[in-house]
């Protein structure tokens, strides 16, 4: 019985120690490899990036579509498609892909905030000022640790 009490006490102390004080640790920036490490989709993503650098957006898009067939739940791939659409002037397409990327996004506030900003830009370009504003607010909330805690 005594032993049990002791064990319980130790446990309680350990739990107490495990409670972390709230500190702002800057998160590592999100990268493709966090989602796609070891996936064959990664080499298609690399090819897509090269095609974009060469200004060949439709080739890049084809690579990304193929990559998505292999890694269908990759938020990062959808983000690349959203970026691509925005540079091609297809703001509506960009918004759709950015929202999809958000749906699949890992728990990474900075990355998600970036996506909301992408949504905001895409909405602005479609003349949706109110939608853009609310997207920017979401981005701001994600970046503000105080509001995250609330």
């Amino acid at each position, binding site marked *: 019985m005594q032993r049990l009490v002791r064990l319980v006490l130790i446990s309680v102390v350990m739990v107490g120690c*495990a*409670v*972390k004080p*709230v500190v702002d640790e800057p998160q590592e920036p999100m990268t493709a490899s966090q989602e796609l490490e070891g*996936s*064959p989709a990664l*080499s*298609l993503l690399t*090819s897509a990036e090269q*095609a974009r650098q060469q200004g060949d957006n*439709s*080739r890049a*898009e*084809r*690579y990304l*579509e*193929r990559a*998505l*067939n*292999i890694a*269908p739940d990759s938020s990062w791939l959808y983000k690349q*498609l959203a970026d691509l659409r925005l540079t091609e002037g*297809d703001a*509506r*397409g960009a*918004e*759709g*892909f950015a*929202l*999809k990327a958000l*749906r699949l996004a890992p728990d990474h506030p900075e990355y998600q905030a970036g996506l909301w900003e992408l949504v905001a830009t895409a909405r602005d370009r479609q003349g949706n000022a109110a939608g853009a504003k609310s997207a920017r607010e979401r981005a701001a909330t994600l970046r503000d640790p105080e509001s995250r*805690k609330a």
Partner: protein
Amino acid sequence: MAKKAKKSPAKSRRQPSRKKKPSAQRRRWFSWSFIAKAGLVCLVLGAAGMAYLDALVRERFDSHAWQLPARVYARPVELYEGRVLSREDMLKLLDLMRYRRDARASTPGSFAVQGNSLLIHTRGFNDSDGGEQSERIRLSLSGGQIRSLEAGGDRLARLEPLQIGSIHPQHAEDRVLVPLDKVPPLLVDMLIATEDRSFYDHHGISLRGLSRAMLANIKAGGLVQGGSTLTQQLVKNFWLSSDRTLSRKLMEMPMALLLELHYSKDQILEAYLNEVYLGQDGARAIHGMGLGAQFLFGRPLEELEPHQLATLVALLKGPSWYDPRRRPERAMERRNTVLKVARDEGALSSADYDKFSARPLEVVPRGASALYAFPAFIDLVRRQLARDYPPEVLSDEGLHIHSTLDVLAQLASEGALKEHLNHRDPKQVKKLNGAVVVVAPAQGDVLALVSNRDSRQAGFNRALDAQRPMGSLAKPAVVLSAVQQPKTYSLATLVEDGPIQVKLPNGSVWAPQNFDKTAKGAMPMVDVLALSRNQATARLGLDVGLDKVADTMKTLGVTRNIPLYPSILLGSLELTPFEVAMMYQPLATGGFSTRLRSITDVLDKDGKPLARYPVSTDEVVEAGPAFLTQWAMQQVVEEGTARAARAALPSDLRVAGKTGTSDDFRDAWFAGFSANHLAVVWVGRDDNKNAGITGSSGALPVWANLMGKLPQRSLSQNPPPSVEWVWMNEDGRRVSAEGCGNARRYPMLAASIPEDSDGCGTVKQTGKGIKGWFKGLFD
């Protein structure tokens, strides 16, 4: 001149006397000067004629105005480590693409089985991303997966897309252009040896060839050799109709001369090889060696072996007389003659002659060609293309259309529909037919389309054109409309399943019945859907609002006018199977609407990218309501009207769907999905009579069978941030806890979670409850 003229009056005794100067007229007719003049006129006319012919020859030849119908390809087969692909399916694909077994896989289009691994020599192809080079890859397959892949340092490889058809108007020509440097030299040698031995020496016409042919014909006592040179034959094929008129014969020779004057032997040979008529496939004329190779052997010309090349050359003598499918003996004899001539001319060694003349014809059966094997899908591609390209571009310009068809999904769908209908309706007593649409929901790619239990038959495209009442397939739209009002409804909300009557504006009364003619009383909304209760759905839908439900259907992708009758709640709206797939696509993706596409890329005849049909997606339903609806649809399969599908699927696979049956058992539907396949199945009769089937008995087995044959990923069980799992009291109004009475666990939107608890269990478990408290502690 004078003498001749003098004779005529004497002979013209019956010449009426009142005609003056008859002899003078006669004299003019036969005068030398007249002949000279006539000769001059003829010369001028002849020169003009030659100039005309010259223009004709050059214009047609220079413009290369060959009709090249647009070709449609399936999606390329993507190979990578980890891809779910059985060894059996891999071999099936190689067989469909006519890969040859060859111990070293030494040439493109061949493969070898080496224990657990396959050595494949791919063919290479163009694509909008640059395509693939031909390469040798080593692939090891086990446990239904690609375990490893070696492909030139890369971990990815693609097999070329299978050609599945071409788009051309009725009675069109068809061909596969092959440049001369890709034509096997042996084919050229055989051609020249048998058809025109002095080809490289003559100027279009060969008198020696003509006399030799005549001699041979006399010796044989019949027509064994034509005296026409290859050039003349090309003229015949290229410019002249095939009827044997004198004027045609007269034009042939000068045109042949002109052709030789302007063009090199190689150019003429290349044109000949691509133009020559080789037979008929229904309304489609087979022109050129490239298409001939595909038509007879299902392979590219470059891959044919000597005896197969000889069969093509044998056909030149008479494509229907020597048709190797209908006249195999004749074709074989002629083929061996070609081989013999090739040997005698030194183009083929004696050993090869012995070897190849002993080989059978090896012609593929007509139906075995993937070409035209998928008429329903090709129809869809054609409709999509017709919006963007005028007909003449499609029939003439040789476009390469890369489609979304997945050959394995298509074959699985065809097989599942056929198998089930043959089982249920073996002698076609009930005249049951059906349609299947399979879609990759995230990208909207149409992977398979079946519109007939005999899928090779073209004709009425049930998948695209059969408009039928969707029945209970409408119910998920009612549930979605309800959970989008989370303050009022959750999946736990009780709905009364009992008689309901609605007075319609026209005075009649709408009183829907349940399928089993009973009423089950109050039940949670999720069960209303899972058990497909009509009266409860009608009550719920009317409560939510007909206009809301109609709006939801439109949001999901129904484009038809939706009349606001209560009967739409139970699926009186008529949709085609394809439209049902459109409506279910956002349900399958958690609320993202993507236009269904059958084409990804269009390339020109040289493989240069022309146009893309990119994926595009819109968020049309928020994550929370979409997740709830999808979860409710999973219960249809877990414990509802589609339970029977479980047996055909892996036990850990989570799928969702809905059965549908229309009045009088006319239509049986099932529409359902995993994370990577959405499939819609319709079964019914063309005459719209009672088919005696329900969604569960008529359509679900087809769905389960085909889904079971494809690699599936489970639907995600992770709710979005706006949704929590909550144990609810069976009254649907109070929170409860695990193990309490009949408490059940539901995904709930925050606004739906009641403040009240039934007091069972210790802690009220909402987001702000114990879980939230602990979370706050550790965050």
